[in-house]
C-alpha cells in the first residue's frame, strides 16, 4: 500500500508536495512520449478509483435524469420508444458535463498542473493520458449502463448495439472537447456553469450524429454513415484537442502566479 501511495500526488501539507513535483517531472530524459502518456493515465485512473464519488456520481446522475423523463412526459411505451435515443444521449451528455470539472481542478489546486508545465515535457502528451483516464472513469461506465436504461426507455432491441457503439465513440469525443473547456476555466472559481456554457454548443454535432444513429436503427435503417461520422469526429477531436488543452493549461497556470 505504501509503495503505491508514493506514485500518486499524496499531499503532505507542503504546497506542492514533494511527490507531486517528482511525479510530474517524470524521468525527463529517458521517458518516451507514450510512456509519459501512460504514466498519467495510470495515475489518474488510480486516483479516480480511490475516490468513489468521482466516477459514481455522474453515473447516478445519468440514471436519475433518464428516469425523470417518463415521469415528466408520461409512461406510454410508444412515446418513450420514440424519444428514447434523444433522452439517453442528452442525459449522457449532461452526465459527462458534470464530471468534466474534475479533470483538472484537483491537479490545479495541488500544483500538479504547474509542475507539468515547468517539467519541460510536452504538455499535450501528458494531457492525452489524463483525458483518456477521464473517459475510462466517466464515459465508459455510462456506455456500459446504457443498455439497461434503454430497456427502461422501451428502446427497440435492435438498437442496443448501435446505442453502445455510438456512445462509445461519442463519449470519447465529449471527453476531449470538454477537456478544452475544463482547461480554459481551470483558474476560475465555480467555473462549472461557465464550463457547460462554453462546451455545450461545441458538442452539438456529436449529439446529432449519436442520437440519430440510434433512432435510425430503431426505425429500421442503416446507421453506418452516422457511426463513421462519429468516428471521424472522435479522431479529429482526439488529435486536435490536446493542442488546445495544453495551451489553455499554460494560460491557467500562468494566471495563478
Amino acid at each position, binding site marked *: 500500500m505504501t509503495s503505491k501511495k508514493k506514485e500518486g500526488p499524496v499531499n503532505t501539507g507542503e504546497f506542492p508536495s514533494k511527490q507531486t513535483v517528482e511525479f510530474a517531472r517524470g524521468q525527463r530524459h529517458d521517458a518516451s512520449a507514450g510512456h509519459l502518456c501512460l504514466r498519467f493515465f495510470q495515475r489518474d485512473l488510480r486516483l479516480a478509483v480511490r475516490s468513489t464519488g468521482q466516477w459514481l456520481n455522474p453515473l447516478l446522475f445519468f440514471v436519475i435524469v433518464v428516469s425523470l423523463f417518463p415521469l415528466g412526459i408520461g409512461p406510454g411505451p410508444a412515446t418513450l420508444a420514440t424519444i428514447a435515443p434523444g433522452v439517453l444521449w442528452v442525459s449522457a451528455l449532461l452526465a459527462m458535463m458534470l464530471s468534466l470539472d474534475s479533470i483538472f481542478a484537483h491537479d490545479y489546486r495541488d500544483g500538479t498542473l504547474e509542475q507539468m508545465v515547468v517539467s519541460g515535457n510536452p504538455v499535450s502528451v501528458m494531457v492525452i493520458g489524463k483525458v483518456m483516464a477521464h473517459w475510462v472513469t466517466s464515459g465508459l461506465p455510462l456506455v456500459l449502463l446504457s443498455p439497461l436504461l434503454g430497456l427502461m426507455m422501451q428502446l427497440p432491441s435492435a438498437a442496443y448495439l448501435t446505442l453502445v457503439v455510438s456512445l462509445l465513440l461519442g463519449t470519447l469525443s465529449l471527453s476531449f472537447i470538454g477537456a478544452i473547456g475544463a482547461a*480554459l476555466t481551470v483558474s476560475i472559481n465555480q467555473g462549472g456553469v461557465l464550463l457547460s*456554457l462554453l462546451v455545450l*454548443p461545441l458538442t*452539438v*454535432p456529436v449529439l446529432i450524429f449519436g442520437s440519430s444513429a440510434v433512432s435510425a436503427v430503431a426505425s429500421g435503417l442503416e446507421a453506418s454513415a452516422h457511426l463513421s461520422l462519429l468516428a471521424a469526429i472522435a479522431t479529429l477531436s482526439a488529435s486536435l484537442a490536446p493542442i*488546445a488543452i495544453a495551451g489553455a493549461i499554460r*494560460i491557467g497556470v500562468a*494566471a495563478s502566479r
Partner: protein
Amino acid sequence: MYRFAERLAPWLAILCVLTLAAGLYLGLVVAPADYEQGDSYRIIYIHVPAAWMSMFVYMVMATSSAVFLIWRLKIADIVAVASAPIGAAFTAVALLTGSFWGKPMWGTWWIWDARLTSELLLLFLYLGYLALRGALESPQSASKAAAILAIVGVVNIPIIHFSVEWWNTLHQPASITKFDKPSMHISMLRPLLLMVLAFQLLYFHNLMVRVRALILQRENRASWVAELAEKNHV
C-alpha cells in the same frame, strides 16, 4: 493606431449613414413589392445583412485571435474583444428579424430550420466567449484563453453547420415550406447590396469607436493618455 481609429471613425460614420439612408430608401420605397410575399419581404434588407455580418464578425474575431496568439500583437486582441459584442448583437438582430419574418411567411415564430439553428448556436458561441472573458480576472490570461476559445469555435463552426443541416433534412425534409427564392430582380438586389455595405460600415465604425475606448482604457498609465486627458480637461 489610436490616431488612425480617431481619424477613420467620423468618415465611416458619414459613409454609413449615407449608404443606410440610400439603402433604406431604395429598399423600402423604390423597390417593388414581391408578388408572393407583398411588402413583408422588405425585412430582408435588415435580416440578410445582419446574418452575413454575424458570420463575418466571427471570422474577424477568430482571425485576430490567431494573430494575437501567434505574433502577440496587442491590437489584434483589442480588435477581437471589440468585435465580440457587436457580432453577438448582429446575430441577435438576425434571429429576431428572422422570426418576425417567419411569422407571416411560415406561420410560426420559430422553426427548427437548419439555418436558424446554426445561427442560434453561433449566438451561444458568442455568449460563451463573452462569458469566459468576463470570468477571468487577469486581462492577459483572459485574452489568451478567449483567443483559444475563438479558434476552437471557428474549427467547429463548419462541423456544427453541416451536422445541423443534415439533422434537419434527416428528420423533417418537406415540412418546411421554404419559399423558392426567385432570382432577384435588380431593383430588389441593389438596395440589398447597399444595405450589406452599410452594415459593414456600421461594424467598422463601431469597431473603431470601441477600439479607441479600449486602447485608452488599457494604456491609462501611458503619458500620452495623460496629455490627451489634460488637453480635453477631463
